């Protein structure tokens, strides 16, 4: 491997030229160029649906390009499947975790490459030890012998990263690896990526967070609508410039919440407890107000949201909607009472992948759309069109299965589905995870607008700027308890962090 210095204009390790890929009528990639140089971290940015993940899957051998050339070390590269890509030294972290829930964490990491002992048997001990070493490198503790089922999204992502690292690959491709990670883990990941670069590997990094992009990468390629726009040194670019190239126009990257008159209390949660997950959680949200629930990963915010909505049961406490008690454990009743929950895991909880965009968008509203118990196609379509248009969902047609949409567009469909129920109370868990910059501002504007219309909004977010920019009040959770309530004026980076790490607990 050529130990090129970062940013050196050495010969590219991997080069893509004119790569084209379409799915039916959708052209996901149109003649894309990409050159990955040894020792360099290269960012790939673009809006949702720009074709980043498709490019990644092409590199990984999971998709065969319709046209175009790939060369590795100057030699043409033909990938017939993911196994070929691995053999060529390409390790990939996909946008959605691809773990085997029934197998142990260590097996997940070393599947197909387990260390062997006599008779070509698998050496489980050595495998667990190696896994433990990898986790040490990443600075996390995950029991290698436990099954992957039940890991939180962040942990799943960490296992994926460990897996990719275990290859000691020459090319590391990471598709939004940080979307579910916290600052510390991101830093460690970057540390590892940099050390790989120092050893001459090439890194392809995808993220919607520009601070990360500029922090890690020396070169940035912009995609728009499947087409290559530019590849430049990061040093020659600014965030605004990148955004302009991505979107093709100016966008303000954040949209602060507009003040709206506060109305009556719509959601009231009192003494909510669930053994081992959260305890004695109390808060209320008024119409016109956005309350943010902040905290570290695993603080139990999502669990509270799920319990309030009725997907999970709780052991004690009560939930009141506009003064009336909501029966526990019944999402149907919660919806009827005017509540909506945009869940954090869109693939598992938010969407029915095989169903069409239209069916997904109207799924939660199907009762309201029926007349005399019968569903009428026209009303459904009109409703779906209204919301997908408002959220600018990019899909070939409304009848296309949601699975064919890009990650960010899928997220928008989830939003559309819940907004279509015209809720009074909107609980929204990581609303902009994986959403591109333009749409993010759009979502923020929408949330602000909805609050202005009198909705009570409870927002769970791991992105501090989002929390600080959008919330009227910030509730900070730590280890299953609400430890701090900060009005907008008092909420800043330090005060929230302080409370979230448990140091500011007023107990």
């Amino acid at each position: 491997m050529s130990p090129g210095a970062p940013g050196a204009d050495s010969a590219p390790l991997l080069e893509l030229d004119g790569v084209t890929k379409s799915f039916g009528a959708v052209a996901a990639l149109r003649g894309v160029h990409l050159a990955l140089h040894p020792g360099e971290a290269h960012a790939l940015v673009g809006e949702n649906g720009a074709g980043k993940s498709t490019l990644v899957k092409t590199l990984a051998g999971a998709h065969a390009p319709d046209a175009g050339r790939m060369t590795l070390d100057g030699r043409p590269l033909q990938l017939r499947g993911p196994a070929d890509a691995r053999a060529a030294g390409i390790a990939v972290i996909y946008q959605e975790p691809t773990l085997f829930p029934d197998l142990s964490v260590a097996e997940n990491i070393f599947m197909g490459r387990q260390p062997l002992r006599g008779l070509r048997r698998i050496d489980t001990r050595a495998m667990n030890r190696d896994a433990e070493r990898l986790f040490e490198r990443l600075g996390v503790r995950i029991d290698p012998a436990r099954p992957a089922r039940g890991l939180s999204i962040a942990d799943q992502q960490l296992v994926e990263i460990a897996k990719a690292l275990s290859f000691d690959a020459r090319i590391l491709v990471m598709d939004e690896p940080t979307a579910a990670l916290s600052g510390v883990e991101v830093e460690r990941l970057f540390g590892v990526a940099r050390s790989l670069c120092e050893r001459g590997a090439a890194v392809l990094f995808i993220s919607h967070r520009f601070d990360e992009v500029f922090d890690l990468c020396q070169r940035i390629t912009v995609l728009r609508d499947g087409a290559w726009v530019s590849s430049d040194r990061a040093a020659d670019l600014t965030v605004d410039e990148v955004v302009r190239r991505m979107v093709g126009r100016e966008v303000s990257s954040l949209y602060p919440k507009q003040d709206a008159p506060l109305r009556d209390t719509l959601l009231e949660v009192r003494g909510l407890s669930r053994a081992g997950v959260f305890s004695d959680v109390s808060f209320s949200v008024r119409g016109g107000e956005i309350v943010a629930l902040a905290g570290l990963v695993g603080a139990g915010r999502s669990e509270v949201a799920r319990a309030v909505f009725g997907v999970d049961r709780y052991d004690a406490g009560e939930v009141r909607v506009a003064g009336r008690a909501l029966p526990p454990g019944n999402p149907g009743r919660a919806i009827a009472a005017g509540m909506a929950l945009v869940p954090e895991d869109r693939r598992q909880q938010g969407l029915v992948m095989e169903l069409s965009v239209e069916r997904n968008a109207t799924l939660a509203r199907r009762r309201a759309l029926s007349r005399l118990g019968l569903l009428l196609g026209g009303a459904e379509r009109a409703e779906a069109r209204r919301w997908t248009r408002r959220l600018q969902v990019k899909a070939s047609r409304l009848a296309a299965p949601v699975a064919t949409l890009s990650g960010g567009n899928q997220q928008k469909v989830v939003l559309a589905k819940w907004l279509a129920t015209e809720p009074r109370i909107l609980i929204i868990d990581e609303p902009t995870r994986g959403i591109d910059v333009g749409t993010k501002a759009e979502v923020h504007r929408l949330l602000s607008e909805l609050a202005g219309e009198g909705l009570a909004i409870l927002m769970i977010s791991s992105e501090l700027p989002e929390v600080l920019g959008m919330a009227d009040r910030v509730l900070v959770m730590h280890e299953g308890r609400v430890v701090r309530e900060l009005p907008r004026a008092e909420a800043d980076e330090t005060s929230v962090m302080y409370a979230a790490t448990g140091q500011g607990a007023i107990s």
Partner: protein
Amino acid sequence: MSLTDTGAPAQAAENPPPGPGRRRGLTERLLAVRELSLLLALGALILVTTLRNDRFLSGQSIKDLLLGCAILVILAVGQTLVIVTRNVDLSVGSILGLVAFATGELFLAAPGTPWPVALLLGVALGAVCGVVNGGLIAVAKVPALVITLGTLYAFRGIDYYWAAGRQINAADMPRSFLRLGNQTVLGVPALFLVALIVVAAVGFYLRSYRSGRELYAIGSEPAAARLSGIPVGRRVFAVFVANGALAGLAGVLYAARFGTLDAAAGTGLELQVVAAAVVGGVAIFGGSAYGAALGAVLLTTIGSSLAVLRIDPFWQQAVVGALILAAIGLDRLLALRMAARLRGRSAHGA
């Protein structure tokens, strides 16, 4: 910039993980418990039956038991291979019937054929049926249940067509071959030894070999398996061929054991085989070949002991059904308790 952080390091410091390799994975332990409970159930059944009738534990009776379960064990183990990849093979009964009849025909056509040749040919014919199943599934990318439901009919139809209502009798087959079905080695029926070898080999393979683990990976999350470069199509194909070959083996052994063959041999066996695998815990959490084998032994023993206990014959099938329900219910209970324990301990630090 994001704000979340993991409390892991602190937590882990309080709770250092035990040295690597010293403890077995939770999944593995779960399976061990599963197999243990099956053994217990089997023990209890034998005990109760023996208390009522002490001849149940006589040498002859044990020999009969072992003989009786051998074929089902082989089929259940083969089915395990298929089920762990999240597929199912409903055509095993028909493959068994076809191969059994073919074996008889072979001896009719060439009476002098030595039995090992017959055995190999039978296994090969079974494998060919497996190739048909696996090929259709791989090429057409259609759920195995549908394809094998189709070949369940198709193979049986071929068998019927071929047999055309004829029967092949013990007298048509060489003594040496028939002896295979009844012979004992150190008091253990040869048939059961064959089954034991199959169980051990498949069990060991599934647990300790890369490709064996890949089968579990495929069953656990097929899409992820594809993305991790596991040759899913090839593995699934191989699994069906292997299962076909085992069904072929079972077919030859069936011919040796029963001596009387017509085209109906093994009809309806597929449900018993799936039931054995289900009782053995395969359908619910991956499961192992050992569990499936124990499931098969348990089911056969139930059949025998009901006969010995002289349970009203009209009740027998109902009791078998109730026991299947009880077995999977127990399974579930165990799984839930394990899951509760998983939830109890955080992901970070064991």
